[in-house]
């Protein structure tokens, strides 16, 4: 048994979210530098250059990279031998979000119909997972909703096969066009049920760009999808080009004999993603 003080968790997660708002992950920056070379459209190259410049400026000046500092989505892996002390862990994570967003944009409405701003960017959306051991690992996505809005999920019958899955993913990116702020990171969930397929697609966005699925048939699917998406012509910011997606990450979930659910979660070219382990 290991005891972790929730006050320390609040402190660490608050700091992580604050930092992540102005500091984009190195794997993303590296992918953008490669994309700058691969892009054939002069306008597309300029857009990538501008986004890299913006990222460097935001980091240096500690200002958010994008005005949409997102909704905080937290993935918490808790070892089954962990005991939390000093308060409730869920409340501590909400407090951490409130702390971090004091100087960031408040983009959350508490009630989706009444649409009154919660005033402190809470609640964060939290996904819990109990794992073996005594570690606590928290990953964060500060998800911009321009790209979230263009994301889609559908419950398909198995007959659509892999071809139908590909079609749905490509069509989602095509419909999103410039709206989702390409170059995109495309998270794809396949299988599971209505609830888990979306979560799988979102978790796919946590993977570093450049990571490849360990399953050969999934790795092939990822490569084919990136290629097809980059043939759409959308390009950086939709201003034309051959770099529409930096990566496609596919995550599979076991499913029922009657279904082939698919979810496509798009991330924009300001992927605020971070992880800490305590």
């Amino acid at each position, binding site marked *: 048994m290991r005891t972790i003080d929730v006050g320390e968790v609040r402190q660490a997660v608050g700091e992580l979210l604050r930092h992540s708002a102005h500091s984009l992950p190195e794997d993303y920056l590296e992918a953008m530098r490669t994309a700058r070379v691969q892009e054939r*459209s002069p306008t597309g190259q300029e857009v990538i250059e501008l986004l890299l410049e913006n990222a460097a400026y935001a980091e240096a000046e500690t200002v958010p990279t994008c005005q949409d500092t997102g909704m905080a989505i937290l993935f918490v892996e808790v070892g089954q031998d962990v005991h939390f002390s000093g308060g409730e862990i869920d409340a501590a994570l909400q407090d951490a979000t409130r702390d971090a967003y004091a100087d960031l944009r408040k983009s959350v409405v508490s009630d989706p119909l009444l649409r009154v701003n919660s005033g402190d960017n809470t609640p964060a959306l939290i996904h819990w997972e109990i794992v073996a051991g005594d570690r606590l690992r928290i990953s964060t996505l500060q998800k911009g909703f321009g790209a979230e809005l263009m994301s889609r999920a559908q419950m398909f019958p198995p007959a659509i096969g892999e071809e139908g899955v590909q079609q749905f993913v490509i069509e989602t990116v095509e419909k999103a066009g410039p709206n989702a702020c390409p170059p995109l990171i495309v998270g794809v969930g396949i299988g599971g049920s209505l609830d888990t397929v979306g979560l799988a697609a979102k978790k796919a966005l946590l993977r570093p760009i450049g990571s490849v699925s360990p399953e050969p048939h999934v790795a092939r699917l990822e490569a084919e999808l990136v290629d097809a998406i980059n043939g759409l012509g959308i390009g950086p910011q939709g201003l034309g*080009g051959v770099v529409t997606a930096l990566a496609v990450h596919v995550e599979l979930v076991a499913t029922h004999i009657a279904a082939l659910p698919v979810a496509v979660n798009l991330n924009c070219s300001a992927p605020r993603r971070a992880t800490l382990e305590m």
Partner: protein
Amino acid sequence: MSRTVKAPLDEATVKSLRAGERVVMTGTIYAARDAAHKRLVAALQRGEELPLPLSGQVIYYVGPAPAKPGAVIGPAGPTTSGRMDPYTLPLLERGVAGLIGKGSRSEEVKEALVRHGAVYFGAVGGASALLARQIRSSRLLAYPDLLSEAVRELEVEEFPLIVINDCHGGDAYLAAREAYRRDGEGTHRSR
């Protein structure tokens, strides 16, 4: 070097702009996004006076992040314009001449741009920290309870834009996508 256009826009400038053209904008523009649009259009329907002028004016779809102490404004890049489509026609009918955002517009809005002589400009989404440097002043005009969605008057200087939809029916997104879409042989056509 991009051409400078002055905001508010005059008719001759609007007519001269072509889809795909890069410009920089200097002058006064108005920040308004989702919740503000809903209120503005509801106020128009009730016949009320609006908190901002419309004729010849430019509306920027933006909800800035909070400003650092001493800064004019926080990061202020464009938000997705399509969400404002349902509110845009009444504004164009009353003379709004320029819209700034990112992403595609509905056919209805594109037709209205031609009908009313107005232009839709794109700013680079996600370049928000850099774009904020081109904003010289920001004044809260209305709806402070909407926080980042409040209506603001912004003075911009050389704010970089690209004409997406001009008043002649040109569409930069469609043209660009067509130019780089891979054909059957797996090659890319360049412009």
